[in-house]
């Protein structure tokens, strides 16, 4: 464990956690609407992957706030998007599920389960013929691993030896459907192992996630084709804010909460003596400040103007032709 890296992991995971708790509160306050999928419990995956995969293109599903933060998106711009404001990363037109920033090579929140996987594969094809070897990172949940688009994607990526890391976040539940009810494998790496190197890791341990992605990154950068990682993880909250959670027990949730990625990292770092208490206090204070500023920024930002309804349907050239 490297001290600087552990500090970074802790800060980003804590920022993610507090950001999500603030989003939950603002949803309750009526400032955020629609579907809101919280990443609470899964921060080790979001932070570990993005810290390791620091170049290349990222295609993601819709539980992506913390992933976006870890990629470098401003929490202010994300919170403003959740509030539906003009200053949001997608100008208030995307919302929680659609945070795009091509300058960060971050494409997503795709809200069609598995719908982004063929797109990630096509992007990897282009990167390969363009001679860029940073490759593509595609993250999805256990639910997506049952969809046709998933199987088409691992097939094509493997047939054409494309630089893609397929990262399955197995939190066991597709909304309220347990993976064992609808898939022959609870361990998802079984689905990909005939196509590419595939492994299952502990997604509640940020260092393990980070190391696995570093290994996968080396593999794809060396032109060896795609790589599959399944991370076991768990969301402490419901699927979205409208989830009553009747499909799983309190006991099960408690078992996973004991594996809290943030508290466990802190505990381990203190035990090993590589980070001192003082750092954690400072980090927590900084997180508090950044999240509060994000909420204030979102709350005080203007709404989109009426005319913006008709903008961004087409590019300017086509828009002129169409109107």
């Amino acid at each position: 464990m490297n001290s600087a890296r552990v500090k970074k992991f802790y800060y980003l995971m804590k920022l993610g956690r507090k950001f999500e708790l603030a989003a939950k509160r603002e949803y309750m306050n009526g400032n955020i609407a629609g579907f809101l999928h919280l990443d609470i419990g899964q921060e080790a995956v979001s932070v570990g992957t993005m810290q390791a995969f620091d170049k290349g293109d990222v295609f993601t599903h819709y539980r992506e706030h913390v992933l976006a933060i870890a990629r470098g998106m401003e929490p202010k711009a994300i919170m403003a998007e959740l509030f539906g404001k003009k200053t949001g990363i997608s100008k208030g037109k995307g919302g929680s599920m659609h945070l795009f920033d091509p300058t960060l090579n971050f494409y997503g929140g795709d809200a069609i389960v598995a719908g982004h996987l063929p797109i990630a594969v096509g992007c990897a094809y282009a990167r390969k013929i363009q001679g860029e070897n940073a490759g593509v990172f595609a993250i999805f949940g256990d639910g997506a691993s049952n969809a046709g688009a998933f199987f088409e994607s691992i097939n094509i990526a493997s047939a054409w030896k494309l630089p893609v890391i397929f990262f399955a976040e197995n939190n066991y539940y597709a909304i309220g459907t347990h993976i064992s009810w609808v898939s022959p494998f609870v361990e998802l790496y079984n689905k990909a192992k005939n196509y590419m190197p595939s492994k299952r890791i502990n997604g509640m341990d940020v260092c393990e996630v980070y190391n696995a992605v570093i290994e996968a990154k080396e593999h794809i950068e060396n032109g060896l084709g795609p790589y599959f990682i399944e991370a076991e993880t768990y969301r402490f909250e419901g699927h979205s804010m409208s989830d009553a959670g009747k499909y799983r027990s309190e006991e099960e949730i408690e078992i996973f909460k004991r594996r809290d990625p943030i508290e466990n990292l802190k505990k381990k770092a203190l035990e090993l003596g590589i980070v001192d208490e003082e750092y954690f206090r400072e980090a927590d204070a900084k997180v508090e400040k950044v999240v509060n500023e994000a909420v204030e920024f979102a709350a005080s930002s203007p709404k989109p103007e009426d005319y913006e309804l008709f903008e961004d349907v087409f590019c300017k050239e086509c828009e002129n032709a169409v109107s």
Partner: protein
Amino acid sequence: MLYREALNKAIDESMAADESVVILGEDVGRYGGSYRVSEGLFSKYGEKRVIDTPIAELSIVGNAIGMAIAGLRPIAEIMTANFSLLAMDQIINHAAKFRYMSGGKMTIPLTIRMPGGVSRQLAAQHSENYETLYSSVPGLIVLTASNATYAYYGLKEAVFLNDPVVFLEHELLYPMDMEFKEIKNFDPFKAEIVKEGKDLTIITYLKMRYDVLEAEKELKKAGIDAEIIDLNSLRPLDIETIANSVKKTKKCVIVEEDHKTGGMGAEIAAQIQEHCFYNLDAPILRIAGEDVPIPYNRKLELLSIPTPDKIVKKILEWKAKNGI
């Protein structure tokens, strides 16, 4: 020039002009394309840019969107328009919406070519164009190529537009030898006045253009001077050219091969009544495909779509009924 050669020339010249242009689809490479549209391109540009895909339309379009995001200008070929339904999620939920839902940050320069229409006894799952589905989606441009000239110029424009284009072709047109006209200042979104006339306006597109032209010979004998408009672009729709013609002739017939219910004609008729209701001397006549899946048997197949004979008959009946 053969229609398919015009398409080939457009792709070839686009690929020669810009190395970001690639073509992908089933059998587009080594096989040369199901309708020989991509013939010769594989040997000329190689397997990196002329890409043979699996039979997986969702991925053909999905992969093409990813390529477009990465800065390429992909031309995705779907073997038959019916198969594009497998890619519908990628076309509508992704290609058409990414720019908007990202607040204008994403650009998807993608052309999706698909042949369709009622060919010859290919039965229900190989005999359709989904122009009405695609042209109802905000964020998509829908072009139709009825002739070699538009096929060439229209496709070249489509490839270099910065938005997703659904480019519809018709299976019966590929082997047809057609006149090719040089055009300066080509506008892909402009309808073509195929023939000027003063008595009534016939609006059509794709292969029905030829059925209408055939019917027009009979109408002329009956003393009717029809104006014929080929739409070329369904989205955007060139309502200006349509409305100017209808205001002149005061009578309008729409001939389309797709099903009548919810077909293109329904939208066009609605727009005409918005723009020139008080100019009309009679209700708009829609001559369209019947509301049935396309049958295999040739006699039934021909009954299911407009033919020159039927067009003439229906127009004469409509004129008599309305006293025009």
